[in-house]
């Protein structure tokens, strides 16, 4: 096929995919059902690979479809399905509007050593140490974090602005959404990648995809033997170079009438731009190619790799965060372990499968899922952790477990979630208002959905909390509600392994239905 219809299909398809991905990540009202989002995420390469190795079932084999697709069509995934790729294309367009020069690409030599080293390093680090490099470099996760950290807050601000205006007219279809930021430090990595990918795509097209992205490099390897690819009709070609100028991947060497198929993302811009109809997309015919190496570049790569490996050695750290002291409560909460979200099975198990794509952080209707900074150690940075100072885990909700694309959070039925103990509430009597102020409180027990936290007689008419740990599920509503400050009088200590909580027992009240007014 040589007509520009291919390009048009690509643009329409990728636009739809992109719109959907934007909506999925800014959906702060949970309007999109989880299974809809799951379908979309099924074909995301890295999440699917991780889910596959976690579950060992073909049902999670979206990535196999992507590989097959690449075998047949080349790196169409990068142009049609990757939200970061599509986002970069969009950004390149904007770049072209700003400065025409930004959209004139021309052929560049491939960063062969760099990209294959990154791919190899990612593989090795992931197999030997864990998921850290994937977390950093996976395009879907980078996209997810960019949306979560930078785009969604803007959407919420706009929503709140409109909600304010609507409110003046007595309309409440939009409601104000309190905007709570994350700890500053966790913005560092998303910000770095947002600027890197954004900057590169604005001025240089698909450079991230062809220099750094391990998924792009891997699919590029497969596309070496792909069946369909961009081809030149050398007799028709006038060597005008328009195609090379329009190639976002800078992979067309028009003088040699050659396309570097490992970098071509099948955007079909070249076909569209070729006035001689010399470029087509069709079944392969092979051609020889020579590779070159660069020593100094190699050194840089090794250096940066060591840096990354050094990072991955940091072990699990503790929550060192201490709220600004006022004067009231005195006993520090002794949190031995962070609380990882329900469905995580256990902290170690969760940490090894989570790529910090942040979709659960977006989906959580209560905003209790927050990106970790040191709770899981440096390597678990940006993975979601339960932050009970910000919010609590709402009892009737399984959203995060439904939406996780890598199965780091296993799907839980509501009944199971209500009995999944992710941590245990610990009561610190010396911080409790009832003891320190000698006045009634009970905010913790009031909030407790299982009444693991309940009140027992104290001095005089007063009652004071007590925790029955085996029916506590660690939802953190007690910790959130506790008014003691700076240290809470009740807090949830995370379970290293999630366990089944006992079902709360209840007996029918002895109070009878009245037949007469008691007054």
């Amino acid at each position, binding site marked *: 096929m040589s007509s520009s219809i291919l390009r048009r299909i690509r643009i329409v398809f990728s636009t739809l995919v992109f719109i959907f991905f934007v909506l999925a990540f800014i959906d702060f*009202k*949970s309007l999109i059902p989880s299974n809809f989002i799951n379908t979309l995420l099924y074909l995301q390469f890295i999440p699917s690979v991780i889910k596959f190795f976690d579950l060992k079932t073909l049902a999670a084999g979206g990535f196999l479809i992507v590989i097959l697709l690449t075998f047949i069509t080349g790196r169409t995934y990068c142009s049609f399905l990757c939200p970061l790729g599509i986002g970069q294309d969009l950004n390149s367009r904007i770049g072209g509007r700003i400065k025409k020069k930004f959209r004139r690409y021309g052929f560049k030599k491939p960063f062969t050593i760099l990209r294959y080293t990154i791919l190899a390093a990612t593989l090795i680090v992931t197999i030997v140490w864990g998921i850290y490099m994937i977390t950093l470099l996976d395009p879907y996760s980078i996209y997810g974090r960019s949306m979560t950290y930078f785009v969604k807050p803007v959407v919420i601000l706009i929503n*709140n602005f409109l909600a*304010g205006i609507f*409110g003046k007219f*007595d309309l*409440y279809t939009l*409601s*104000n*959404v*309190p905007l709570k930021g994350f700890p500053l430090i966790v913005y560092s990595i998303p910000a770095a990648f947002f600027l890197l990918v954004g900057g590169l795509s604005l001025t240089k097209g698909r450079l991230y995809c062809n220099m750094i992205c391990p998924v792009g490099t891997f699919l590029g390897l497969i596309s070496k033997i792909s069946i369909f690819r961009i081809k030149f009709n050398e007799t028709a070609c006038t060597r005008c170079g328009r195609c090379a100028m329009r190639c976002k991947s800078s992979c067309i060497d028009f003088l040699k009438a050659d396309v570097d198929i490992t970098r071509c993302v099948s955007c079909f811009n070249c076909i569209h731009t070729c006035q001689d109809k010399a470029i087509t997309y069709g079944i392969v015919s092979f051609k020889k190619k020579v590779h070159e190496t660069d020593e100094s570049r190699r050194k840089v790569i090794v250096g940066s790799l060591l840096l990354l490996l050094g990072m991955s050695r940091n072990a699990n750290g503790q929550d060192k965060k201490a709220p600004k002291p006022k004067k*009231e409560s005195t006993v520090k909460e002794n949190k031995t372990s962070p609380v990882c979200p329900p469905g995580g099975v256990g902290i170690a198990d969760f940490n090894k499968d989570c790529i910090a794509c942040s979709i659960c952080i977006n989906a959580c*209707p*209560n905003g209790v899922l927050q990106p970790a900074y040191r709770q899981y150690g440096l390597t678990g940075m940006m993975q979601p952790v339960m932050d009970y100072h910000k919010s609590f885990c*709402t*009892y*009737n*909700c399984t959203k995060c477990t439904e939406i996780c694309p890598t199965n780091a959070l296993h799907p839980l039925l509501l009944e199971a979630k209500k009995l999944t103990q992710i941590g245990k509430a610990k009561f610190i009597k010396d911080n409790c*208002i009832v003891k320190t*102020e000698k*006045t*009634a*409180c*009970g*905010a913790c*027990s*009031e*909030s*407790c*959905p*299982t*009444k693991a936290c*309940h*009140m027992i007689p104290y001095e005089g*008419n007063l*009652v004071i909390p007590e925790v029955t740990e085996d029916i506590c599920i660690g939802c953190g509503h007690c910790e959130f*509600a506790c*008014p*003691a*400050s700076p240290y809470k009088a009740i807090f949830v200590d995370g379970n290293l392994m999630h366990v089944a909580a006992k079902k*709360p027992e*209840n*007996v*029918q*009240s002895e*109070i*009878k*239905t*009245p037949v007469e*007014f*008691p*007054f």
Partner: protein
Amino acid sequence: MKRRDFLRTSVGGGLAAGAVLKMGGFDKLWSSKAVSAAAKYDMVAVMGGNPDAMFDLGIQELGGMSAFVQKGQKVLIKPNIGWDVIPDLAANTNPLLVKRIIEHCFKAGAKEVYVFDHTCDNWVNCYKNSGIEKLAKSAGAKVVPGNSESYYQQIEIPGGVKLQKAKVHQLLLETDVFINVPVLKDHNSTKMTCCLKNNMGLVWDRGYWHSNDLNQCIADFALFEKKPALNVIDCYNVMVKHGPQGVSKEDIVSMKTQILTADWVAGDAAAAKMLGVAVDKIEYIPIAHKMGLGNMNLDSLNIKRIKM
């Protein structure tokens, strides 16, 4: 000071009381004075029917909704929507009752009826699963969020012992008539939640109340100038233990009762009897009584009791 008492004194004692009230809105007070005088009872209690039918009867005994709501007025109905549970578990006000009250308000000529609560659980789920959002909207009310501090405005409570300032939902300030519709429940700490404690859903910072003598704060807030024209206490299904959230249906006793009164201290005293708790054990009731915010001595009140 109860509005009716205030009116009585001002009628009897001339303009002296006028100086007490710094705020505007005198005309509103006078207009409701005429109706209050028409009401024969301090309290109406109904037993044995469905929430909506009991309200129909009860409000009729108080002279109909037009005794409380004038044509063109804006009404705030404040139910308890604090928890993400279904209506049968009675942690929230019965949605049928809320709906019926809204209908009566519109029939009396209300221009607009608003419903909101500052919930404890996730507000979207509370509004939805309580059944209140749907039925209130079907009756034509505006269901307003209370989830963000931006909806709350700072007010002063002169004379408050522990609570002198609070941030209240702007609707409380902007509406003409406030109808308090609590559900009677056991409460883990204060022993009972009903009329006065329902106010905690009007304010933003509940934590302050909890850490600064909860019982005193509950009484203090009742000093605030905007008081309910009517309290409708939902005792249809009553959570008698594990309150205020409840664990399961074993916590619920069907009482099929409703109490209507303009005096929220009296309402709370009657509710305590329903729950089988001595009135003086619920600390904020005697405190509020002593502060002159209402009358907890039910014997001195004119109560109409109706069985359906």
